[in-house]
């Protein structure tokens, strides 16, 4: 059974400097409030892991939380660049970061291998591209057919944080809509934190609902609006205007820092 705790306690109990930290939510249910709490608590030297860094990692990178970034698509979806991500890689601001990049298929299989407690995931991928030269990808020969396949190391983050619509008082979690890779991230991690829009007496079955039992989760934190400006299907809408506005806010270091001061750290 998961502990129910306020977000600030959940983060201070579970997230420490130097850890590997995965925040998942594939364009939906992105745990923004938890990311902001990590920034407020001043965590440093984190290995940040997320398929699509999105605005939340742009903010964490710009705020100086990241030592290393593991990802597969670092853009502002439908808008363009993530400027803090770019500034860190192109100009070492606010400090240099290491990167390890994959394809989506590779990252998905890395999480699935972590959830299955296997040493690696296997897929038909990366072949012929320049990615293996710069990333952690190897090949493996199928013992049955002789086919050469890509092998990617399992992801086992120290901590995974995901956001969901609901949990009950035992900490059983239900999310629905685009399910992304959240279940795999929770099961792959050594410690799992889930923020939820609301705590309910009983989880009602939902079409396409994914249940994550409370006994594989460490802490559940009730965090209404915790996915904004991403969204939680049937609770909130994606704030597309903010995704567009972030392009301007984040382009300039001073404007970014002022925005963070006013909206996150103050």
């Amino acid at each position, binding site marked *: 059974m998961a502990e129910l705790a306020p977000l600030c306690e959940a983060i201070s109990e579970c997230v420490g400097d130097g850890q590997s930290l995965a925040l998942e939510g*594939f*364009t*939906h249910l992105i745990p923004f409030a938890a990311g902001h709490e990590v920034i407020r608590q001043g965590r440093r030297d984190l290995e940040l892991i997320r*398929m699509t860094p999105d605005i939340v990692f742009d903010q964490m990178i710009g705020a100086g939380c990241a030592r290393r970034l593991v*990802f*597969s*698509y*670092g*853009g502002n*979806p*439908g*808008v363009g*660049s*993530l400027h803090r*991500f*770019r500034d860190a*890689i*192109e100009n070492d601001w606010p400090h240099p970061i290491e990167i390890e*990049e*994959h*394809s*989506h*298929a590779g*990252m*998905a*299989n890395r*999480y*699935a291998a972590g959830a299955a407690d296997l040493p690696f995931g296997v*897929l*038909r*991928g*990366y*072949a*012929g*591209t*320049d*990615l293996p030269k*710069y990333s952690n990808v190897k090949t493996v020969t199928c013992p049955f057919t002789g*086919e*050469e396949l890509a092998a990617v190391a399992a992801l086992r983050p120290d901590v995974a944080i995901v956001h969901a619509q609901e949990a009950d008082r035992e900490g059983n979690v239900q999310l629905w*809509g*685009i*399910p*992304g*890779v959240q*279940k*795999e991230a929770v099961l792959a991690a050594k410690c799992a934190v889930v923020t939820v829009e609301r705590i309910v007496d009983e989880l009602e079955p939902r079409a*396409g609902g*994914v249940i994550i039992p409370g006994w594989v989760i460490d802490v559940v934190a009730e965090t209404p609006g915790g996915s904004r400006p*991403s*969204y939680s*299907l049937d609770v909130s*809408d*994606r704030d*597309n205007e903010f*995704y*567009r506005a972030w392009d301007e806010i984040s382009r300039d270091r001073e404007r970014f820092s002022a925005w963070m001061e006013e909206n996150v750290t103050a």
Partner: protein
Amino acid sequence: MSATQAGPSATRGEIQTVVAARLLASKKSVFIGVGRPSTAAMLARAVHNPALVLVYESGTIGAKPTRIPLSIGDGDLAATADCVVSVPEMFNYWIQPGRIDVAFLGAAQIDRHANLNSTVIGAYEHPKTRLPGAGGAPEIAANCGEVVVIAPHDPRTFVEHLDFCTTIGHGNGAGSRERLGFRGAGPTAVVTDMGVLEPDPVTRELVLTHVHDDVNANDVWERTGWDLHVSDALVRTDPPTAEELSALRELVDR
């Protein structure tokens, strides 16, 4: 040209979308990202192929968006989909086995064999411009039935050498995909705002086969970073019909 065409004549961008949509007229399913590919697929559903299954990377299979989505995760896509699957399921059960007929892809750079770069401009370790990265593209291009690349026809995009090969199209030419064990046919068309390029059936090098509007082959050659071959059978793209154009404009205005 249709005499009943309403409003101003089509822009080259509109022609690009209309041509991409036509390529989906007889397909069962298409894998798309946001932007022009999504608009083209929605136009194909509206005008040519109401049964076309739209598959977005976010996991929405059979989405029926009524408005052009900003992100592949927009709520409208999940709410209207036949089913919504996880990321591992999307890539392992749907893309890897080649269940999707066509994929639309974009890129910052494309070379003569339709290989794509969406990773960096400049050197990898010290990039001039850091681009978003691979996303789903390498496996989508390897495994979907075929690929249509949609890109602006710009000398910075159509380059002699990619700064980074993110996604294999036809590799080094004839036989490359077979040697890599790829199952899909790879890029069958590159649709730009100036024309359409298709791989030569033997060499797999891109050849200009269609020009849009009043573009001529030399205009396209000048905006291509390699010595672009022009098909002996070069044709002018059929202009958008009144139906195509009004449906497209209606979608964009919605």
